[in-house]
Protein backbone atom coordinates (compact mmCIF):
# COMPACT_ATOMS: atom_id res chain seq x y z
CA UNK A 1 0.00 0.00 0.00
CA UNK A 2 1.02 3.58 -0.44
CA UNK A 3 3.53 4.71 2.12
CA UNK A 4 3.69 8.35 3.05
CA UNK A 5 1.35 9.42 0.30
CA UNK A 6 1.11 13.18 0.17
CA UNK A 7 -2.00 15.12 -0.66
CA UNK A 8 -0.53 18.15 -2.26
CA UNK A 9 -1.33 20.81 -4.75
CA UNK A 10 0.19 20.31 -8.15
CA UNK A 11 3.07 22.44 -9.22
CA UNK A 12 1.76 24.00 -12.37
CA UNK A 13 3.01 26.83 -14.42
CA UNK A 14 6.41 27.08 -16.03
CA UNK A 15 6.29 25.63 -19.49
CA UNK A 16 9.54 23.80 -20.05
CA UNK A 17 8.36 22.26 -23.27
CA UNK A 18 11.20 22.41 -25.70
CA UNK A 19 11.22 18.85 -26.88
CA UNK A 20 7.61 18.01 -26.16
CA UNK A 21 4.76 19.53 -28.05
CA UNK A 22 2.49 21.67 -25.90
CA UNK A 23 -0.78 19.85 -26.34
CA UNK A 24 -1.23 18.30 -22.94
CA UNK A 25 -4.92 17.67 -23.38
CA UNK A 26 -4.35 15.15 -26.10
CA UNK A 27 -6.74 16.95 -28.38
CA UNK A 28 -7.27 15.06 -31.59
CA UNK A 29 -5.94 17.91 -33.68
CA UNK A 30 -2.47 17.70 -32.10
CA UNK A 31 0.24 15.07 -32.19
CA UNK A 32 2.37 14.08 -29.23
CA UNK A 33 6.11 13.82 -29.77
CA UNK A 34 7.65 10.37 -29.26
CA UNK A 35 11.19 10.32 -27.84
CA UNK A 36 13.81 8.83 -30.10
CA UNK A 37 16.67 6.51 -29.23
CA UNK A 38 18.61 7.42 -26.06
CA UNK A 39 20.01 5.66 -23.00
CA UNK A 40 16.77 6.32 -21.09
CA UNK A 41 14.42 5.37 -23.94
CA UNK A 42 13.09 1.86 -24.57
CA UNK A 43 11.05 0.93 -27.62
CA UNK A 44 7.57 -0.39 -26.84
CA UNK A 45 5.12 -1.98 -29.26
CA UNK A 46 1.38 -2.55 -29.16
CA UNK A 47 0.79 -5.82 -31.00
CA UNK A 48 -0.64 -9.31 -30.57
CA UNK A 49 2.11 -10.29 -28.13
CA UNK A 50 3.91 -13.63 -27.75
CA UNK A 51 0.68 -15.66 -27.68
CA UNK A 52 -0.65 -13.88 -30.77
CA UNK A 53 -4.00 -13.00 -29.20
CA UNK A 54 -3.54 -9.84 -27.11
CA UNK A 55 -5.86 -6.90 -27.78
CA UNK A 56 -4.30 -3.58 -26.73
CA UNK A 57 -1.22 -5.04 -25.06
CA UNK A 58 1.92 -2.87 -24.99
CA UNK A 59 5.11 -4.94 -24.91
CA UNK A 60 8.84 -4.48 -24.55
CA UNK A 61 12.00 -6.50 -23.87
CA UNK A 62 14.20 -6.73 -20.78
CA UNK A 63 17.70 -8.15 -20.36
CA UNK A 64 17.83 -10.36 -17.27
CA UNK A 65 21.07 -11.64 -15.72
CA UNK A 66 22.05 -13.91 -12.85
CA UNK A 67 23.35 -11.28 -10.38
CA UNK A 68 26.97 -10.18 -10.88
CA UNK A 69 27.44 -12.49 -13.84
CA UNK A 70 27.43 -12.42 -17.61
CA UNK A 71 24.85 -15.22 -17.65
CA UNK A 72 22.01 -13.29 -19.22
CA UNK A 73 18.86 -13.70 -21.29
CA UNK A 74 16.99 -11.13 -23.36
CA UNK A 75 13.24 -11.63 -22.90
CA UNK A 76 10.76 -9.91 -25.15
CA UNK A 77 6.97 -9.90 -25.10
CA UNK A 78 6.87 -8.37 -21.60
CA UNK A 79 3.77 -6.30 -20.88
CA UNK A 80 4.41 -2.67 -19.83
CA UNK A 81 2.03 -2.13 -16.90
CA UNK A 82 1.65 1.19 -15.09
CA UNK A 83 -0.99 -0.49 -12.89
CA UNK A 84 1.41 -2.76 -11.01
CA UNK A 85 4.85 -2.70 -9.41
CA UNK A 86 7.72 -5.08 -10.13
CA UNK A 87 9.09 -7.37 -12.83
CA UNK A 88 7.45 -10.80 -13.23
CA UNK A 89 8.83 -13.31 -15.71
CA UNK A 90 6.87 -16.30 -16.98
CA UNK A 91 8.91 -19.48 -16.61
CA UNK A 92 9.35 -21.88 -19.51
CA UNK A 93 7.48 -24.39 -17.34
CA UNK A 94 4.34 -22.38 -18.18
CA UNK A 95 5.25 -21.74 -21.81
CA UNK A 96 7.11 -18.50 -21.09
CA UNK A 97 10.55 -17.46 -22.31
CA UNK A 98 12.49 -17.51 -19.03
CA UNK A 99 15.01 -20.38 -18.93
CA UNK A 100 17.80 -18.53 -17.06
CA UNK A 101 18.33 -20.13 -13.63
CA UNK A 102 17.81 -17.08 -11.41
CA UNK A 103 18.71 -17.68 -7.75
CA UNK A 104 15.71 -17.93 -5.43
CA UNK A 105 15.40 -15.48 -2.58
CA UNK A 106 15.47 -17.36 0.72
CA UNK A 107 14.09 -16.60 4.16
CA UNK A 108 16.05 -16.66 7.42
CA UNK A 109 15.37 -20.41 7.61
CA UNK A 110 16.95 -20.98 4.20
CA UNK A 111 13.66 -21.88 2.53
CA UNK A 112 12.72 -20.25 -0.80
CA UNK A 113 10.23 -17.36 -0.67
CA UNK A 114 7.20 -17.50 -2.94
CA UNK A 115 4.59 -14.92 -3.80
CA UNK A 116 0.90 -14.80 -4.64
CA UNK A 117 0.69 -11.55 -6.62
CA UNK A 118 -2.92 -10.34 -6.81
CA UNK A 119 -4.13 -8.73 -10.01
CA UNK A 120 -7.75 -7.71 -10.37
CA UNK A 121 -9.29 -10.87 -11.75
CA UNK A 122 -6.27 -13.18 -11.68
CA UNK A 123 -3.12 -13.92 -9.70
CA UNK A 124 0.42 -14.98 -10.57
CA UNK A 125 2.25 -17.42 -8.31
CA UNK A 126 5.85 -18.53 -8.06
CA UNK A 127 9.17 -17.97 -6.31
CA UNK A 128 10.81 -14.63 -5.64
CA UNK A 129 14.17 -14.55 -7.39
CA UNK A 130 17.03 -12.07 -7.63
CA UNK A 131 18.23 -10.62 -10.94
CA UNK A 132 20.31 -7.88 -12.48
CA UNK A 133 18.19 -6.27 -15.15
CA UNK A 134 18.93 -3.87 -17.99
CA UNK A 135 16.38 -1.89 -19.98
CA UNK A 136 17.88 0.38 -22.63
CA UNK A 137 20.82 2.00 -20.77
CA UNK A 138 19.25 1.68 -17.31
CA UNK A 139 20.31 -0.99 -14.81
CA UNK A 140 18.93 -2.38 -11.55
CA UNK A 141 21.14 -4.78 -9.60
CA UNK A 142 20.08 -7.63 -7.32
CA UNK A 143 16.44 -6.74 -7.90
CA UNK A 144 13.75 -8.97 -6.33
CA UNK A 145 11.54 -10.23 -9.16
CA UNK A 146 8.82 -12.85 -9.35
CA UNK A 147 9.28 -15.97 -11.45
CA UNK A 148 5.76 -16.92 -12.53
CA UNK A 149 5.74 -20.70 -12.11
CA UNK A 150 2.53 -22.57 -11.31
CA UNK A 151 4.56 -25.71 -10.56
CA UNK A 152 6.41 -24.10 -7.62
CA UNK A 153 5.62 -25.95 -4.36
CA UNK A 154 1.87 -25.93 -3.61
CA UNK A 155 1.75 -22.17 -3.99
CA UNK A 156 -0.78 -21.86 -6.84
CA UNK A 157 -3.33 -23.83 -4.79
CA UNK A 158 -2.60 -21.67 -1.75
CA UNK A 159 -3.09 -18.48 -3.80
CA UNK A 160 -6.34 -19.79 -5.28
CA UNK A 161 -7.64 -20.60 -1.80
CA UNK A 162 -6.62 -17.14 -0.55
CA UNK A 163 -8.06 -14.99 -3.37
CA UNK A 164 -10.47 -17.13 -5.38
CA UNK A 165 -9.42 -15.44 -8.61
CA UNK A 166 -8.01 -17.10 -11.74
CA UNK A 167 -4.57 -18.65 -11.78
CA UNK A 168 -2.57 -17.04 -14.61
CA UNK A 169 0.68 -18.98 -14.71
CA UNK A 170 0.75 -20.11 -18.36
CA UNK A 171 1.21 -18.34 -21.69
CA UNK A 172 -1.82 -19.58 -23.56
CA UNK A 173 -4.07 -20.91 -20.82
CA UNK A 174 -5.13 -24.45 -20.06
CA UNK A 175 -8.21 -26.28 -18.79
CA UNK A 176 -10.35 -23.29 -19.71
CA UNK A 177 -8.22 -20.86 -17.66
CA UNK A 178 -7.09 -17.71 -19.38
CA UNK A 179 -3.40 -17.38 -20.18
CA UNK A 180 -1.07 -14.52 -19.34
CA UNK A 181 -0.51 -13.99 -23.12
CA UNK A 182 2.81 -12.33 -22.21
CA UNK A 183 6.31 -13.50 -21.27
CA UNK A 184 6.14 -11.32 -18.21
CA UNK A 185 4.88 -8.09 -16.70
CA UNK A 186 7.01 -4.97 -16.21
CA UNK A 187 5.22 -3.13 -13.40
CA UNK A 188 6.29 0.53 -13.59
CA UNK A 189 3.37 2.13 -11.74
CA UNK A 190 3.40 4.90 -9.10
CA UNK A 191 4.41 2.77 -6.09
CA UNK A 192 7.75 1.12 -5.24
CA UNK A 193 6.88 -2.23 -3.61
CA UNK A 194 4.10 -4.53 -4.75
CA UNK A 195 2.78 -4.91 -1.19
CA UNK A 196 4.29 -2.40 1.23
CA UNK A 197 4.60 -2.27 4.99
CA UNK A 198 1.73 -4.64 5.79
CA UNK A 199 3.57 -7.56 4.20
CA UNK A 200 6.47 -6.85 6.56
CA UNK A 201 4.16 -7.42 9.55
CA UNK A 202 3.13 -10.61 11.28
CA UNK A 203 -0.39 -11.56 12.31
CA UNK A 204 -3.79 -10.80 10.84
CA UNK A 205 -2.84 -7.48 9.23
CA UNK A 206 -0.44 -9.33 6.91
CA UNK A 207 -2.43 -9.77 3.68
CA UNK A 208 -0.73 -13.06 2.77
CA UNK A 209 1.16 -12.24 -0.41
CA UNK A 210 4.55 -13.71 0.60
CA UNK A 211 5.19 -17.31 1.63
CA UNK A 212 7.99 -19.38 3.12
CA UNK A 213 7.99 -22.65 1.19
CA UNK A 214 9.41 -25.72 2.92
CA UNK A 215 9.43 -28.36 0.22
CA UNK A 216 5.92 -28.48 -1.19
CA UNK A 217 4.34 -26.61 1.73
CA UNK A 218 4.05 -22.82 1.72
CA UNK A 219 3.01 -20.76 4.74
CA UNK A 220 2.52 -16.98 5.03
CA UNK A 221 5.65 -15.10 6.01
CA UNK A 222 6.59 -11.50 6.70
CA UNK A 223 8.67 -9.91 3.93
CA UNK A 224 10.73 -6.76 4.43
CA UNK A 225 10.26 -3.82 2.08
CA UNK A 226 13.65 -4.23 0.40
CA UNK A 227 13.01 -7.95 -0.17
CA UNK A 228 9.60 -7.40 -1.80
CA UNK A 229 9.15 -7.54 -5.56
CA UNK A 230 9.45 -3.93 -6.63
CA UNK A 231 9.33 -1.40 -9.42
CA UNK A 232 12.72 -1.67 -11.15
CA UNK A 233 12.69 2.01 -12.15
CA UNK A 234 12.98 3.05 -8.49
CA UNK A 235 16.20 1.02 -8.30
CA UNK A 236 17.89 2.59 -11.34
CA UNK A 237 20.99 4.69 -10.57
CA UNK A 238 19.60 7.56 -12.65
CA UNK A 239 16.25 8.50 -14.22
CA UNK A 240 14.59 6.69 -11.30
CA UNK A 241 11.69 8.99 -10.37
CA UNK A 242 9.14 7.74 -12.89
CA UNK A 243 8.36 6.91 -16.48
CA UNK A 244 6.62 8.37 -19.52
CA UNK A 245 4.64 6.11 -21.83
CA UNK A 246 4.60 7.67 -25.30
CA UNK A 247 2.36 6.16 -27.96
CA UNK A 248 1.15 7.88 -31.13
CA UNK A 249 -2.41 8.60 -32.07
CA UNK A 250 -3.71 5.69 -34.11
CA UNK A 251 -6.71 4.14 -35.74
CA UNK A 252 -7.47 0.43 -35.41
CA UNK A 253 -4.26 -1.33 -36.51
CA UNK A 254 -2.20 -4.51 -36.27
CA UNK A 255 0.80 -2.87 -34.56
CA UNK A 256 1.94 0.52 -33.27
CA UNK A 257 5.36 1.49 -31.85
CA UNK A 258 6.24 4.07 -29.20
CA UNK A 259 8.67 4.78 -26.40
CA UNK A 260 8.98 4.11 -22.67
CA UNK A 261 11.04 6.99 -21.29
CA UNK A 262 12.73 6.70 -17.89
CA UNK A 263 12.90 9.69 -15.56
CA UNK A 264 10.85 12.87 -15.31
CA UNK A 265 12.79 16.09 -15.77
CA UNK A 266 16.13 14.29 -15.49
CA UNK A 267 17.20 14.59 -19.15
CA UNK A 268 16.48 16.83 -22.10
CA UNK A 269 14.05 14.23 -23.47
CA UNK A 270 11.79 13.79 -20.43
CA UNK A 271 10.73 17.28 -19.33
CA UNK A 272 7.28 17.56 -17.79
CA UNK A 273 6.50 20.33 -20.25
CA UNK A 274 2.92 21.54 -20.19
CA UNK A 275 1.53 18.33 -18.73
CA UNK A 276 -0.87 18.76 -15.80
CA UNK A 277 0.10 16.97 -12.58
CA UNK A 278 -2.62 14.88 -10.88
CA UNK A 279 -1.53 13.78 -7.36
CA UNK A 280 -2.48 10.21 -6.43
CA UNK A 281 -4.29 9.67 -3.12
CA UNK A 282 -3.80 6.95 -0.48
CA UNK A 283 -6.21 4.67 -2.38
CA UNK A 284 -3.83 4.90 -5.40
CA UNK A 285 -6.53 6.85 -7.25
CA UNK A 286 -7.55 10.26 -8.48
CA UNK A 287 -11.04 11.10 -9.70
CA UNK A 288 -12.95 11.64 -12.92
CA UNK A 289 -16.13 13.61 -13.57
CA UNK A 290 -18.69 12.23 -16.00
CA UNK A 291 -22.14 13.71 -16.67
CA UNK A 292 -22.13 15.69 -13.44
CA UNK A 293 -20.99 12.87 -11.15
CA UNK A 294 -17.51 12.29 -9.73
CA UNK A 295 -16.02 8.80 -9.62
CA UNK A 296 -12.79 7.22 -8.34
CA UNK A 297 -10.35 6.73 -11.21
CA UNK A 298 -6.88 5.53 -12.13
CA UNK A 299 -4.54 5.35 -15.13
CA UNK A 300 -3.35 1.87 -16.17
CA UNK A 301 -1.51 0.85 -19.35
CA UNK A 302 -2.12 -2.77 -18.37
CA UNK A 303 -5.90 -2.42 -18.72
CA UNK A 304 -6.70 -3.14 -22.35
CA UNK A 305 -9.74 -0.88 -22.74
CA UNK A 306 -11.29 2.26 -21.29
CA UNK A 307 -13.18 0.49 -18.51
CA UNK A 308 -15.72 2.86 -17.01
CA UNK A 309 -19.06 2.86 -15.19
CA UNK A 310 -21.99 0.85 -16.50
CA UNK A 311 -24.66 0.71 -19.20
CA UNK A 312 -27.11 2.77 -17.14
CA UNK A 313 -24.80 5.75 -16.69
CA UNK A 314 -23.10 5.59 -20.11
CA UNK A 315 -26.01 4.39 -22.31
CA UNK A 316 -23.50 1.95 -23.84
CA UNK A 317 -24.79 -1.65 -23.98
CA UNK A 318 -22.51 -4.50 -22.95
CA UNK A 319 -21.73 -6.95 -25.77
CA UNK A 320 -24.26 -9.78 -25.73
CA UNK A 321 -21.49 -12.38 -25.96
CA UNK A 322 -18.95 -10.74 -23.62
CA UNK A 323 -20.01 -8.54 -20.70
CA UNK A 324 -16.43 -7.25 -20.36
CA UNK A 325 -16.77 -4.88 -23.32
CA UNK A 326 -19.23 -2.31 -24.65
CA UNK A 327 -20.99 -2.85 -27.98
CA UNK A 328 -22.79 0.37 -29.01
CA UNK A 329 -24.63 0.23 -32.34
CA UNK A 330 -22.27 2.90 -33.71
CA UNK A 331 -19.17 4.80 -32.58
CA UNK A 332 -20.18 6.93 -29.61
CA UNK A 333 -18.41 10.14 -28.60
CA UNK A 334 -18.20 10.94 -24.88
CA UNK A 335 -16.18 13.19 -22.61
CA UNK A 336 -14.93 13.01 -19.03
CA UNK A 337 -12.84 15.22 -16.79
CA UNK A 338 -9.93 13.86 -14.72
CA UNK A 339 -9.28 15.73 -11.49
CA UNK A 340 -7.19 15.53 -8.36
CA UNK A 341 -6.36 17.67 -5.34
CA UNK A 342 -5.50 21.04 -6.83
CA UNK A 343 -5.74 19.90 -10.46
CA UNK A 344 -8.55 19.70 -12.96
CA UNK A 345 -8.15 18.67 -16.57
CA UNK A 346 -10.03 20.06 -19.51
CA UNK A 347 -12.81 17.67 -20.54
CA UNK A 348 -11.21 14.80 -22.48
CA UNK A 349 -13.08 13.57 -25.52
CA UNK A 350 -13.01 9.92 -26.48
CA UNK A 351 -14.89 7.50 -28.70
CA UNK A 352 -16.19 4.05 -27.84
CA UNK A 353 -16.72 1.58 -30.68
CA UNK A 354 -18.45 -1.78 -30.93
CA UNK A 355 -16.08 -4.44 -29.55
CA UNK A 356 -17.63 -7.25 -31.56
CA UNK A 357 -17.10 -5.27 -34.76
CA UNK A 358 -13.55 -4.31 -33.77
CA UNK A 359 -12.63 -7.93 -32.97
CA UNK A 360 -14.16 -9.16 -36.24
CA UNK A 361 -10.89 -8.22 -37.99
CA UNK A 362 -8.49 -11.06 -37.07
CA UNK A 363 -5.43 -8.99 -38.03
CA UNK A 364 -6.27 -6.06 -35.72
CA UNK A 365 -4.72 -5.84 -32.24
CA UNK A 366 -4.59 -2.05 -31.62
CA UNK A 367 -7.99 -0.62 -30.65
CA UNK A 368 -8.15 3.06 -29.62
CA UNK A 369 -11.94 2.88 -29.24
CA UNK A 370 -12.23 -0.27 -27.11
CA UNK A 371 -14.34 0.24 -23.98
CA UNK A 372 -15.98 -1.80 -21.29
CA UNK A 373 -17.89 -1.57 -18.01
CA UNK A 374 -16.28 -1.00 -14.61
CA UNK A 375 -18.98 -0.35 -12.05
CA UNK A 376 -18.60 2.99 -10.26
CA UNK A 377 -15.00 3.50 -11.41
CA UNK A 378 -13.04 5.05 -14.28
CA UNK A 379 -10.04 3.03 -15.49
CA UNK A 380 -8.11 5.05 -18.07
CA UNK A 381 -6.64 2.02 -19.82
CA UNK A 382 -4.43 1.75 -22.89
CA UNK A 383 -6.72 3.59 -25.37
CA UNK A 384 -6.17 6.70 -23.20
CA UNK A 385 -2.43 6.53 -23.98
CA UNK A 386 -2.73 6.79 -27.78
CA UNK A 387 -1.73 10.30 -28.85
CA UNK A 388 -0.89 11.41 -25.32
CA UNK A 389 2.35 11.25 -23.32
CA UNK A 390 1.41 9.88 -19.87
CA UNK A 391 3.76 10.47 -16.92
CA UNK A 392 3.80 8.22 -13.84
CA UNK A 393 5.83 9.60 -10.90
CA UNK A 394 6.88 7.14 -8.20
CA UNK A 395 5.89 7.47 -4.54
CA UNK A 396 8.42 9.51 -2.54
CA UNK A 397 10.56 10.51 -5.53
CA UNK A 398 11.22 14.17 -6.30
CA UNK A 399 10.46 15.56 -9.75
CA UNK A 400 10.09 19.03 -11.28
CA UNK A 401 6.32 18.54 -10.82
CA UNK A 402 6.63 17.85 -7.10
CA UNK A 403 7.04 14.61 -5.20
CA UNK A 404 5.40 11.43 -6.47
CA UNK A 405 3.08 9.67 -6.60
CA UNK A 406 1.24 11.38 -9.43
CA UNK A 407 0.04 10.93 -12.96
CA UNK A 408 0.59 13.78 -15.41
CA UNK A 409 -0.63 14.29 -18.95
Amino acid at each position, binding site marked *: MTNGTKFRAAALGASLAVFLSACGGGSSSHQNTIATSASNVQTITVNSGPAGDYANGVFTSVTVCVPSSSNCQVIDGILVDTGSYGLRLLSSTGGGALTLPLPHQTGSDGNPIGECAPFVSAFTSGPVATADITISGEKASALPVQVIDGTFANLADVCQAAFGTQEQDTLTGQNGQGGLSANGILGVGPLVQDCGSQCAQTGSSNPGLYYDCAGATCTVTSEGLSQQVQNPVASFATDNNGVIVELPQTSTASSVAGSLVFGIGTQSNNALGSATVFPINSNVEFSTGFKGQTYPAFVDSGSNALFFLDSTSTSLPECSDNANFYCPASNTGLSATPASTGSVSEALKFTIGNADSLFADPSAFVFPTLGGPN*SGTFDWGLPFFFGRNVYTAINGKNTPGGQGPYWAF
Partner: protein
Amino acid sequence: MQARVQSTQHSAYTLHELQSATGTIVREYVSPAGTVFAVAWKGPYPPNLHELLGSQYAQYEQAMKMPSGRASHGPATIRLPNLVVQLSGHMGDYSGRAYLPDKVPSSMSLESIR
Protein backbone atom coordinates in the same frame (compact mmCIF):
# COMPACT_ATOMS: atom_id res chain seq x y z
CA MET B 1 -11.89 -12.94 8.36
CA GLN B 2 -11.20 -10.81 11.41
CA ALA B 3 -13.35 -7.75 11.14
CA ARG B 4 -15.04 -4.92 12.89
CA VAL B 5 -18.76 -4.76 12.13
CA GLN B 6 -21.14 -1.85 11.87
CA SER B 7 -24.79 -2.33 10.91
CA THR B 8 -27.19 0.19 9.39
CA GLN B 9 -30.91 -0.37 8.96
CA HIS B 10 -32.43 0.74 5.65
CA SER B 11 -36.06 0.44 4.63
CA ALA B 12 -35.53 -2.53 2.32
CA TYR B 13 -32.38 -4.09 3.75
CA THR B 14 -29.77 -4.09 6.51
CA LEU B 15 -26.22 -3.08 5.63
CA HIS B 16 -23.37 -4.75 7.54
CA GLU B 17 -20.00 -3.07 7.09
CA LEU B 18 -16.96 -5.13 7.99
CA GLN B 19 -13.35 -3.96 8.08
CA SER B 20 -10.78 -6.71 7.87
CA ALA B 21 -7.43 -6.49 9.63
CA THR B 22 -5.77 -5.83 6.26
CA GLY B 23 -7.87 -2.66 5.81
CA THR B 24 -10.23 -3.90 3.12
CA ILE B 25 -13.87 -2.93 3.76
CA VAL B 26 -16.66 -5.37 2.89
CA ARG B 27 -20.34 -4.38 2.80
CA GLU B 28 -23.04 -7.03 3.02
CA TYR B 29 -26.60 -6.22 2.01
CA VAL B 30 -29.11 -8.40 3.84
CA SER B 31 -32.85 -8.74 3.14
CA PRO B 32 -35.47 -8.71 5.95
CA ALA B 33 -35.65 -12.49 5.48
CA GLY B 34 -31.94 -12.74 6.26
CA THR B 35 -30.65 -13.38 2.72
CA VAL B 36 -27.36 -11.72 1.73
CA PHE B 37 -28.33 -10.47 -1.74
CA ALA B 38 -25.25 -8.33 -2.43
CA VAL B 39 -21.69 -7.79 -1.26
CA ALA B 40 -19.29 -5.01 -2.19
CA TRP B 41 -15.67 -4.38 -1.23
CA LYS B 42 -12.86 -1.86 -1.48
CA GLY B 43 -9.36 -1.77 -0.07
CA PRO B 44 -5.62 -2.17 -0.52
CA TYR B 45 -5.76 -5.97 -0.78
CA PRO B 46 -8.22 -8.28 -2.53
CA PRO B 47 -10.87 -10.07 -0.50
CA ASN B 48 -11.31 -13.85 -0.51
CA LEU B 49 -13.97 -14.52 -3.13
CA HIS B 50 -14.58 -18.01 -1.71
CA GLU B 51 -15.74 -16.37 1.54
CA LEU B 52 -17.69 -13.56 -0.11
CA LEU B 53 -19.50 -15.60 -2.74
CA GLY B 54 -20.12 -18.66 -0.60
CA SER B 55 -22.43 -21.09 -2.38
CA GLN B 56 -22.33 -18.89 -5.51
CA TYR B 57 -18.57 -19.35 -5.92
CA ALA B 58 -18.80 -22.48 -8.08
CA GLN B 59 -21.05 -20.68 -10.55
CA TYR B 60 -18.66 -17.72 -10.74
CA GLU B 61 -15.65 -19.98 -11.17
CA GLN B 62 -17.30 -21.90 -14.00
CA ALA B 63 -18.20 -18.66 -15.79
CA MET B 64 -14.62 -17.35 -15.49
CA LYS B 65 -13.44 -20.48 -17.32
CA MET B 66 -15.77 -20.07 -20.27
CA PRO B 67 -13.97 -18.72 -23.33
CA SER B 68 -15.49 -15.43 -24.38
CA GLY B 69 -13.68 -14.23 -27.49
CA ARG B 70 -10.76 -11.87 -27.06
CA ALA B 71 -9.88 -11.52 -23.43
CA SER B 72 -10.24 -8.44 -21.28
CA HIS B 73 -7.24 -7.54 -19.17
CA GLY B 74 -8.14 -5.42 -16.18
CA PRO B 75 -11.62 -5.18 -14.69
CA ALA B 76 -13.92 -8.16 -15.19
CA THR B 77 -17.69 -8.50 -15.39
CA ILE B 78 -19.39 -11.89 -15.00
CA ARG B 79 -23.07 -11.56 -15.86
CA LEU B 80 -25.23 -14.65 -15.36
CA PRO B 81 -29.03 -14.81 -15.13
CA ASN B 82 -28.96 -15.08 -11.34
CA LEU B 83 -25.49 -13.77 -10.42
CA VAL B 84 -23.42 -10.70 -11.34
CA VAL B 85 -19.78 -10.38 -10.22
CA GLN B 86 -17.68 -7.29 -11.03
CA LEU B 87 -13.99 -7.03 -10.17
CA SER B 88 -12.17 -3.68 -10.43
CA GLY B 89 -9.04 -1.81 -9.45
CA HIS B 90 -5.32 -2.28 -9.88
CA MET B 91 -2.45 -3.39 -7.67
CA GLY B 92 -2.82 -1.69 -4.27
CA ASP B 93 -6.46 -0.75 -4.91
CA TYR B 94 -9.12 -3.44 -5.25
CA SER B 95 -12.87 -2.99 -5.44
CA GLY B 96 -15.83 -4.91 -6.69
CA ARG B 97 -19.25 -6.24 -5.99
CA ALA B 98 -21.43 -9.30 -6.45
CA TYR B 99 -25.22 -9.48 -6.32
CA LEU B 100 -28.16 -11.75 -7.00
CA PRO B 101 -30.25 -9.73 -9.53
CA ASP B 102 -33.55 -11.43 -8.70
CA LYS B 103 -33.05 -10.87 -4.95
CA VAL B 104 -32.20 -7.13 -5.02
CA PRO B 105 -35.18 -5.15 -3.62
CA SER B 106 -37.01 -3.37 -6.44
CA SER B 107 -36.81 -0.08 -4.53
CA MET B 108 -33.00 -0.20 -4.54
CA SER B 109 -30.81 1.08 -7.39
CA LEU B 110 -27.95 -1.18 -8.46
CA GLU B 111 -25.64 1.87 -8.37
CA SER B 112 -26.05 2.01 -4.60
CA ILE B 113 -24.36 -1.38 -4.19
CA ARG B 114 -20.77 -0.34 -3.64
